[in-house]
Each structure stands twice: as C-alpha cells, then as structure tokens.
C-alpha cells in the first residue's frame, strides 16, 4: 500500500487529539503548554503534507511562520508562568482559583 495524503492527515489528526487530551486532563501548566505545542505541530504536519501533495510551496512558508510565532509564543508564555510561580509558588491550575465565583 502506498502512503498517501490520507495517512499523513490521520497522523496529524491523532497528534492533535493527543495534544487536546493533554490540555484537558493534565493540570500542570507546563505540561499543558507542551500539549499545546503538540497541537501546533500537528497543524504543521497537515500543512506540509497538503503542500507536498498539492504541489504548492505556500504551505511550507506558512509552516515557517508558524514555527517562528510559536517560538515567540513559548517565550512569552513561559515568562508568564514564571511570573505566576513567583507570585503563587505553584504552577498548578487547581491552585489558581482567585477568579472563581
């Protein structure tokens, strides 16, 4: 059986589902953040495979931008987590309930 577009898209969909599962079930901010990265990466995989099979390089340029923006996002997000940790001594979402009614 030849590997085609569907196979790559299925891998990407499963990876996205895994990332979503991590965001929903894990309560540690850093692990949740890593799961977000997993979801971003699955979108990248889908874009690259579309770009390859539709013979169009624009998708790969898009992925290049996504990687850049993700790097910036990681820097800002981790700085926020560190600032939060300094204030609360915890990186656990269950401890952050000051906005709960």
């Amino acid at each position, binding site marked *: 059986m030849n590997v085609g577009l*569907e*196979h790559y898209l299925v891998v990407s969909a499963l990876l*996205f589902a895994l990332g979503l599962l991590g965001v929903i079930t894990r309560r540690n901010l850093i*692990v949740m*953040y890593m799961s977000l990265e997993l979801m971003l990466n699955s979108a990248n995989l889908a874009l690259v495979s579309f770009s390859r099979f539709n013979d169009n390089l624009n998708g790969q340029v898009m992925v290049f931008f996504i*990687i850049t923006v993700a790097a910036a996002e990681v820097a800002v997000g981790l700085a926020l987590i560190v600032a939060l940790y300094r204030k609360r001594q915890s990186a656990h979402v269950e401890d952050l309930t000051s906005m709960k009614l």
Partner: protein
Amino acid sequence: MDALLNYLFSSNGLFWVFAFMTLACGGLVVANPFSRNPVTSAMFLVLTIISMAGLFVLLHAFFLAAVQVMVYAGAVMVLFLFVIMLLDLQEEERRKVKKLGLLAGLLSIGAIAGIFVKSLMAAQPGRGLPAPVAEGGTIPLGKLLFTNYLLPFEIVSVLLLVAMVGVILLSKKDLK
C-alpha cells in the same frame, strides 16, 4: 527478515516507523504511566519533534525539517527545560490524577479522533491527485520568502522583537 528490513527502509516503511514514533512519544508526553515528572514529558516532546522532522524529510520538506530540529528541538525545548529546572515541580508527582476526569477526557477525545479519522478515510482527500513533485529545498522556499512573502517576513521579525521586549518586562522583579 531481509524483505522486512528492505521494506522498513523504503520511504513507505519509514513513514510507518516515524508515524509510530511520533504518536507513541506524543502519547508519552501527555500521559506517561511510569513518571509524571515534567522533565520526562519534555524529553519525549523532543523525541516527538525529531520524528516529526523525519516525516518532513519524507515529505521532501528538507528546509523545514532542519528548522524543526534547530528551533523546536533546540531552542524551544531548552527554554522549556530551563523553566522546569527554575520552578520546583516536585509536588507534581504527589498529586493524584482524577480518575473521572481522565476517563471523561479519554472518551471525548477518543470520539473526536474517531470522527476525524473516519471522515478522512471516507473523504479520501488524496485520491486522484497527480504524483507529488513539490520540493521544499532552501532555494525555492527562500525565493518565495523574499518575494511573495517579504512583508509577512518583516512583520514576523517585529513580532519577535516585541516578544523579546515583553519577556524582559514580564520577568522584571517589580513591575511599575
């Protein structure tokens, strides 16, 4: 045995190897039965990203595979590890996982993944496409990046600057 090895090192076989590694390591990032230490998660995320770079090579996106390894596995993951080491996360291992939440999450995400995969298999988006020829080498991507996408490229550079300034401001001891 020889036939199996030959198949494994063909591009079709390598797809299965890398796809399996990506999904297995991705699963271990999210839920590792042996360790709940964030450092283990980060290490498996590095493995996931490297096997995804392998998938990129199979898709002939050579430049992006290199960028993936350098930027993600290199810079981003070092940042992650740095922050994990900075914070003291020992108590993470002592916390209990809520069984009900885990079960509900697994069920709903399993349903979503099932719908994704079923619909992809039913739609067959790759059917009838000509044989792929797009090559993501440095030269064609660079040409595209500095002609059609010159403005977004510059905007992204400004975005990186903004992120840098923002991070410095956020990590100052006393915000005024």
